[in-house]
């Protein structure tokens, strides 16, 4: 618990311009920052002991501003602690700095977020679709993508629905 407070204070001091909040809903430590601070804060956390990037994902809060939220999950083996880092990303400028230089596995995770939500990771070495096919238009996990809109690659024998 003390260590958590210590970490919070240190981040607050080091990254005043990016820091927004540090909360622990249901015991999950969550750091909320501005998107400009993603690379410096994550590289600080990596050196601090959170050496494993578990997941990168995003949330679409359609109708809110900022619309998207990029979420990073980190794990520290030494302290057996996890931390979640969130940053709001707006629809008009859906761009975030890549963290592939910190963690190799960010490559595929960022490609998935791009595929599903259309958030661009600047500086990514190979930002193309990973799950959907190249001809697919739009980003299927966006809330304004029609729920049942399918994009067949071949002519179907009879139409769906």
């Amino acid at each position, binding site marked *: 618990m003390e260590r958590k407070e210590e970490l919070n204070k240190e981040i607050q001091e080091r990254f005043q311009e990016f820091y927004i909040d540090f909360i622990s809903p249901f015991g999950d430590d969550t750091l909320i920052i501005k998107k400009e601070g993603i690379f410096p804060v994550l590289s600080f956390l990596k050196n601090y002991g959170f050496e494993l990037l578990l997941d990168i994902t995003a949330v679409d809060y359609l109708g809110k501003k900022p619309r998207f939220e990029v979420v990073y999950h980190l794990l520290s083996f030494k302290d057996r602690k996890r931390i979640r880092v969130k940053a709001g990303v707006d629809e008009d400028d859906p761009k975030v700095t890549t963290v592939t230089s910190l963690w190799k596995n960010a490559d595929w995770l960022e490609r998935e977020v791009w595929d599903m939500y259309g958030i661009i990771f600047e500086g990514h070495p190979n930002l193309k679709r990973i799950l959907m096919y190249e001809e697919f238009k739009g980003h*299927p996990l966006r809330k304004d993508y029609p729920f049942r809109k*399918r994009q*067949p*690659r*071949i002519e*179907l024998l009879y139409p769906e629905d």
Partner: protein
Amino acid sequence: MKFITTTFDSLLGWARKYSLFQYPFVTACCGMEYMSAMCAHYDIDRFGAGLTRFTPRQADVLLVVGTINHKIAPVLRTVYEQMTEPKWVIAFGTCTTTGGLYDNYATVQGIDHIIPVDVYIAGCPPRPETVLEGLMKLQEKIQKSRQAWRGRKS
């Protein structure tokens, strides 16, 4: 003198229904039930369908086992087109018959949108007994249908 009389169609049907070479197109969890139907406990070989070919060119039955989404749909059609006549298709499980749970942007709502299907096996996943029942239904269909033979259409 011992002999039996029959028609050419039913003789050919009898031969064909008990020597079904199959090509399993396994994409999802139904594969587990397929494996157990294939293995010793349920032993699909009792029905003459034990020989799995891993090229569609040698197969008679295309077993589509598991969810088919739009990304893999062209592959499934190519596999079907590569099979030589006579050929039959079994849709194995709910996902292949209707799309099942997955009514979303990715999943084909039943493989009959892509290729013609002869037998649908329901279940999520179907029990091996259901698979055997489906196979027997297909055998029945093969026995009863007019056989394609040297350019003669079925």
